[in-house]
């Protein structure tokens, strides 16, 4: 849990050092930042695209003073970011939020879309503690499956399950489908999930049915990132400050909202 007093975490600018294309719509941006390079898997940062917007992004990796974030171009801010070149200036605040607990034993990670990024970061750490890591990843189509090589470097091949909606790679189905049999077959000490909220909701229902422990990282509209503005609230929790990682008990408390409604830009509750 990051408890940096806000005064010690002011925005600073840095230059993009490297940009890697991960898929047609996803790029990884690497830059130096002292504070965020100490982040733990699950934590996020606020990235300022000068003159455009400031958006929350999960930290995908750190090494020495370098920090990586993996970003899907979905709108104005992310497209502007995708248009940037190495050397471009961005602003950084963070790391913010809590992190995944690092479980031992048999561990399952389920990522959807760019939700794979923080799980890859987590998997690297878990690999030091456990040798039974199962990684399940889903995407619309083959070339949107992220970090296939990286995951293969961490997990045994038999422990990697991929799904695509169009069947261009792995199983042709939603990521939730192979889970049913997997959870039937195997027992897990911890299940980690990060992806679209509707997916998280489905998986949470499955783990609840089987009384399995889960930690889910959620995404909500974020503005301040420091627990003030209320944009990211789900139930009684602020995703930016009390999350973004929530455990089984917390997820139960927010059942009425998880995957059902969220707070929109105008503060009203809007359905998913």
């Amino acid at each position, binding site marked *: 849990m990051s408890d940096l007093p806000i005064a010690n975490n002011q925005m600073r600018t840095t230059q993009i050092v490297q940009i890697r294309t991960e898929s047609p719509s996803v790029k990884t941006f690497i830059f130096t930042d002292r504070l965020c390079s100490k982040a733990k898997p699950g934590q996020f940062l606020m990235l300022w695209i*000068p003159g455009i917007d400031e958006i929350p992004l999960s930290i995908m990796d750190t090494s020495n003073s370098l920090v990586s974030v993996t970003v899907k171009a979905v709108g104005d801010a992310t497209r502007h970011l995708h248009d940037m070149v190495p050397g471009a200036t961005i602003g950084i605040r963070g790391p913010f939020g809590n992190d995944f607990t690092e479980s031992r034993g048999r561990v399952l990670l389920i990522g959807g879309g760019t939700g794979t990024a923080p799980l890859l970061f987590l998997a690297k750490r878990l690999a030091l503690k456990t040798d039974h890591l199962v990684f399940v990843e889903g995407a619309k189509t083959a070339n949107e499956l992220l970090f296939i090589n990286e995951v293969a470097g961490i997990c045994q091949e038999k422990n990697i399950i991929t799904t695509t909606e169009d069947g261009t790679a792995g199983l042709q189905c939603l990521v939730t489908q192979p889970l049913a049999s997997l959870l039937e077959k195997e027992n897990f000490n911890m299940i980690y999930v990060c992806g679209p909220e509707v997916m998280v909701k489905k998986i949470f229902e499955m783990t609840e049915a089987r009384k399995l422990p889960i930690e889910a990282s959620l995404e909500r509209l974020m503005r301040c990132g*420091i627990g003030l503005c209320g944009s990211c*609230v789900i139930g*009684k929790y602020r995703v930016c400050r009390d999350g973004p990682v929530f455990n089984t008990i917390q997820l139960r408390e927010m059942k009425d909202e998880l995957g059902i409604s969220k707070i929109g830009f105008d503060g009203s509750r809007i359905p998913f």
Partner: protein
Amino acid sequence: MESNALSISCAGLTLNNPTMLASGIMGYSTESFQRIANSGAGAVVTKSVGIQPRVGYVNPTVVQAESGIINAMGLPNPGITIFSEEIKFSKMILRVPLVVSIFGYSAEDYAEVAKKASEAGADAIELNVSCPHVKQTGAEIGQSPKLLSEVVQQVKIATNKPLIVKLSPNVTDITILAQAAIEAGADALTVINTLKAIAIDVETQTPILGNIKGGLSGAAIKPVALRCVYDIADQFKIPIIGCGGIKNWRDAVEFFLAGASIVQIGTAVADNIEVFQSITKGIENYLRKKNARSVKDIVGLAHRK
């Protein structure tokens, strides 16, 4: 000391303890209000609500500065029609007073929002006439005694709920605005809203906030807020709700001594949501040490000669 040393009745509201959540902080949902109440707040104030929904400004809407933050949210809010449902829901659940903060672009706006909020069950109405970052709204009204007086009068007609006017510090003489509000019928004053400010990034050579300018809050503004409370309490008898940079019991007590009966806490919630509890505990110890039976006993003591 009896257990109700901390309770305070003021301007028609009764609070278990003299701390309130300031407007705009986690201020949208019943669950947030309840969490804040459970964290020890004596009352909660909602995010400021207007007639129409507003999505607010583009990010960055918050910049961290030294000893504080600068924000320019742009009054994102769902509009009073939708928010009335939230007020009703809150009133069913919440065990502390719910103050609904409202803003508008004219006296009629204010009156309409106040009326709807009151009908939905608001325990009091706080007028945000001082929000410094939306053109043609707060800033102008809160800076002009005449406009302010008009708004307060109209709202007074539209609701019989306690009416709190939240003053802007961005004025030449805050006591003149206080006087206008009082004479127009305000039941209490919240002192103060944020100080107009800016943050500029030297690398990109641009203002950081999406809206360019914003309002400074947090510890940096405490000496100014405290002076505003002191100045108003020096001249008027109206109940004052102190606000600006309060983050511990000592700050809160300073505001009581300057003349406030209640304090609001905003920015300090970022560092610690349990701040209400620790402040209340500290006030309680302080009152005991000073042999004061209630907060009322210490309100305005710094004015003794």
